[in-house]
């Protein structure tokens, strides 16, 4: 019967190909949307782990999370160095990591921090950062690269890089006179860390030494042997990651920081903020999912319509099956098989279309939108969607199948 169904489809290949194209495209949309959703969610929740409180200047918690952890957008304000010292001096604080953001190198963000970052920062399933080569920074002019930065720009340990003030890879002012030396490269994490250049807080200050009122002044620009480099003291930072001795103290400390008298600060629980951010993105994704399912439904209805309208031209063919001894159920199965075969082919083609699409745009997505998408979708949701689509094709093919069935009963097959 399989042979018959496939030959039958082939004999009507014009309309079959069009229906197949429509099914393939809608299947690719469904798989693609689900794939991006699953990938985004997993890379999203992996970004930061084990941080009890995230502190920044007064802002919304989503904004703070975006600019500090995801390195999207900019801080509106900074934290004074003194406030940082006050906060980490409080009892119950187990560790802290300062973040200073705002500079870049060829489009990659530069993060000023201290060596606690390498010890305490966690991502994914409570995993530590690991150096794939070299060592941590130990001087103001040392830099440690995320794996993607090193890969994309072809840097190895010992390379010299120049950091520009401000963000973007076409900054007009480059500090050619103050190169940083790459001392280490981190192992891949699948988080924004991969796209970050890490320097010490003093390094950040060094970049800004040559500036006065936001304008580079040549006379003030430091040379690598400038004695001022040894005495640099940070004055401001962008955010603080805090780990506490006991999680129960989180809410007390959060309240205290939010009411910090010297300057307006915000302390957030990263998990709560992640949840809130995910809800915002999740709404959009749910919408996309609904649309993709509707597109698929429309194509499935097209499949049903195509099979139904083919019955008219197949009247004699179907009658002939009965005349040579086919049961009416043969006709039901034949039509069902045709619908199912088309959906199955469309599911495979749709999947391959997605693989091809993400395979070709993977590098571009990663560089431009910081989206790390695997080319081969394999999440459970995708297999469920495929199974659902096949089931739906079986159900919708029942309409033409039963029309054919009822016509094949009690029809004078000999009187064409």
């Amino acid at each position, binding site marked *: 019967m399989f042979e018959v169904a496939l030959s039958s489809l082939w004999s009507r290949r014009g309309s079959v190909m069009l229906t197949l194209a429509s099914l393939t495209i809608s299947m690719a949309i469904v798989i693609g949307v689900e794939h991006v959703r699953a990938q985004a969610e997993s890379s999203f929740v992996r970004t930061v782990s084990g941080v009890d409180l995230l502190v920044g200047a007064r802002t919304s918690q989503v904004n703070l999370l975006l600019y500090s952890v995801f390195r999207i957008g900019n801080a509106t304000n900074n934290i004074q160095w003194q406030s940082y010292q006050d906060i980490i001096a409080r009892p119950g604080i187990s560790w802290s990591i300062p973040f200073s953001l705002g500079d870049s190198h060829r489009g990659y963000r530069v993060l000023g921090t201290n060596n606690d970052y390498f010890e305490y920062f966690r991502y994914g399933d409570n995993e530590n950062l690991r150096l794939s080569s070299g060592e941590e920074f130990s001087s103001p002019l040392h830099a440690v690269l995320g794996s993607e930065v090193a890969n994309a720009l072809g840097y190895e340990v010992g390379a010299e890089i120049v950091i520009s003030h401000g963000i973007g890879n076409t900054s007009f002012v480059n500090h050619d006179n103050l190169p940083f030396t790459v001392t280490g490269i981190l192992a891949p994490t699948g988080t924004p860390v991969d796209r970050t250049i890490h320097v010490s807080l003093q390094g950040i200050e060094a970049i800004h030494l040559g500036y006065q009122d936001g304008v580079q002044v040549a006379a003030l620009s430091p040379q690598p042997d400038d004695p001022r480099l040894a005495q640099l003291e940070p004055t401001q930072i962008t955010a603080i990651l805090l780990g506490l001795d006991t999680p129960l103290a989180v809410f007390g400390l959060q309240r205290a920081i939010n009411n910090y008298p010297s300057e307006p600060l915000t302390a957030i629980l990263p998990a709560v903020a992640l949840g809130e951010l995910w809800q915002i993105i999740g709404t959009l994704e749910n919408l996309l999912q609904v649309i993709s399912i509707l597109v698929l439904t429309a194509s499935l209805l097209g499949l049903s319509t195509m099979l139904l309208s083919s019955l008219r031209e197949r009247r004699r063919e179907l009658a002939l099956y009965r005349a040579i*001894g086919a049961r009416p159920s043969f006709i039901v199965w034949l039509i069902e098989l045709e619908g199912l075969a088309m959906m199955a082919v469309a599911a495979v083609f749709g999947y391959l279309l997605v693989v091809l699409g993400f395979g070709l745009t993977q590098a571009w997505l990663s560089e431009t939108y910081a989206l790390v998408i695997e080319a081969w979708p394999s999440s459970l949701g995708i297999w469920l969607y495929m199974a659902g689509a096949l089931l739906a094709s079986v159900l919708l093919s029942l309409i033409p199948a039963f029309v054919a069935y009822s016509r094949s009963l009690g029809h004078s097959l000999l009187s064409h």
Partner: protein
Amino acid sequence: MNAISITNLHYTWPGAERPTLDVPDFQVACGESVFLRGASGSGKSTLLSLLAGILAAPADSVRILDTDIASLTARKRDRFRAEHIGIVFQQFNLIPFLTVGQNLKLAARFTGKSGQAVENRSVELVESLQLHPDLLQRPADQLSVGQQQRVAIARAFINSPEIILADEPTSALDADAKDHFVRLLLSIRESTGCAVVFASHDNSLADMFETKVALADINKVKPQEVTHV
């Protein structure tokens, strides 16, 4: 045992006001060849559909090979048709997108037969119909009408049925081809010994058959009264 035995068959199409058939008595012996003459629209096709069990006949009116086909379930009736009755139509005898071989295999499939035996029988039948065995690999819609009608005979005989029903099988053929077709049909019948009911309006072929019957003689419903759906 008769191949076909009709007693008091009344048939009215669902929704029709007047009956199409009222046949008090009609018998076909095993191995008999019958020419059934009737104008188109006289109820010939309806009668053949009832004999084939495609239309459901009333109980105790149609016996095929001593089986009251109304007593069979729909499922068994389809199987019975596949095993015991071969049908040849006026045209559209073959599934156009399948090859000749696939058409023959499909017909065999409905009796549960497959494999080498079917292939051998296909070659044998095609050769005895004076067709080249290479034709088995050709799609049915690439054949000429004459070739298609001959393959239809092979298809009808593939399961070695006891009864062949032919409904105007020659009306699409020219005069020479008609004679040739009927001769082939009857020569294969002789080697298998089955009964043939050959329905046609074309009297010129009647002399080739053992028995000649006019539908108007066995059907008490007059042709002008027939409502044909």
